[in-house]
């Protein structure tokens, strides 16, 4: 069980390599899906809110360190996103929730929070248009992340390996 809980940290490096090497080929108008967030939501729904919050902080720190973005920005947003996703944790449906459409809804919600919070930290501007913030920097990146999560969900074998 304890090994299982540090698995996402081990998965981080290969996933981050895909994020910075492969995902940029699929960018749409500068928007790319956030694979680390999908990993985070998955494990938050598996092990609960408290675990998710700590994992979000750790994965956020690793993201900040490896991409050169503002140190603390991903820590903050990933911690907050995991907190939101953690509300949907239910130990009675742990095995099934990550295989249901609700999983995509949770990813979308967490992703919107993640993207908007990141925008506010990285680009805080009092004249920032609410529409731009919500759609361009919140909903569109979240939709892309959700679409990629749905593709992963479709092709994930019924038997769980992670």
């Amino acid at each position: 069980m304890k090994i299982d809980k540090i698995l996402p940290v081990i998965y981080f490096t290969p996933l981050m390599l895909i994020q910075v090497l492969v995902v940029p080929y699929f960018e749409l108008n500068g928007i790319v899906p956030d694979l680390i967030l999908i990993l985070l939501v998955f494990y938050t729904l598996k092990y609960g809110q408290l675990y998710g919050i700590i994992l979000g902080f750790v994965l956020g720190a690793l993201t900040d360190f490896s991409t050169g973005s503002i140190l603390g920005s991903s820590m903050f947003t990933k911690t907050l996103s995991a907190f939101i996703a953690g509300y949907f944790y239910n130990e009675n449906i742990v095995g099934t929730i990550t295989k249901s459409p609700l999983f995509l809804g949770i990813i979308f919600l967490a992703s919107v929070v993640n993207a908007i919070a990141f925008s506010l930290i990285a680009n805080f501007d009092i004249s920032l248009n609410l529409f731009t913030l919500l759609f361009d920097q919140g909903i569109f990146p979240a939709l892309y992340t959700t679409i990629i999560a749905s593709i992963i969900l479709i092709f994930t074998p019924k038997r769980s390996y992670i």
Partner: protein
Amino acid sequence: MRIFGNIWTQFKEYLVLILLLLISVFFISHSDHRSVKNLKTTTFGAFAFVSSIFSDAFHTAGLKNENEKLRKQNAELMLEINKLREFGIENVELKNLLSVKDTISYQLIPAKIISKSFSADQTIFTLNKGNDEGIKAGMAVITGEGLVGIIERSSDDFSLIRTLKHTNFRVVVKDQRSRFQGILHWSGSQLIISNLPKTSEIKLGDRIVTSELSSLIGQPFPIGIVKKIINPDEGYFNNVLIKPFVEIEKVENVFIVAAIPHKIKNSIELNFYNNGN
């Protein structure tokens, strides 16, 4: 003691959340400190090393050298054309005055982008060359089409580029035709020159280049063309939207301009850059 135990049991998620968010905010507010910068440089260098091993699998090895030579030649020609264009305009303006001396000297260091980090606000690339190749923070990064960004920091073997599409990127630019100057920045969705006086004679399609007044990039590198002029009814200023020449997301190979026009001036400018970060 029991009360604290009860509080912890009931609110542990909230307490941990608040603690971790406070730590994050602490890091955000201290992200410009030298120690944090050094830590980031070391860590990104380590990750970039892993990235560089895998990135080769995503780039074709064939014709690599020839391609690199052609790209370098292309970039040099772009700079040459741009310089000639500048001279042409200056010649018309100055006519019979003294001819302008060519004080610009530059050396191009070819480099490959080994990883890309995208978000609406911050597009950051990692290069496979660093301090060992003479790369320093503040140097301009270009392709054959124009400016990509500037070197933000570098380890011995790798460097980070702060691209044009980064909200902390600011550069003084000018309209090559009308000579009006302004500060270019990335809004999160557009490249904008803000607060240009309405009297400025900027037109759609005008070429925008970096200005010699820029504290970091003292040479005229092409940026893009004027795509739209936003002219509000109120106030005295326009905003100008720029379409960049370089498709930032698709760039794979770049050149770092190792240009140091004047040692004293350069050190003063770099001090400004370092202090500003």
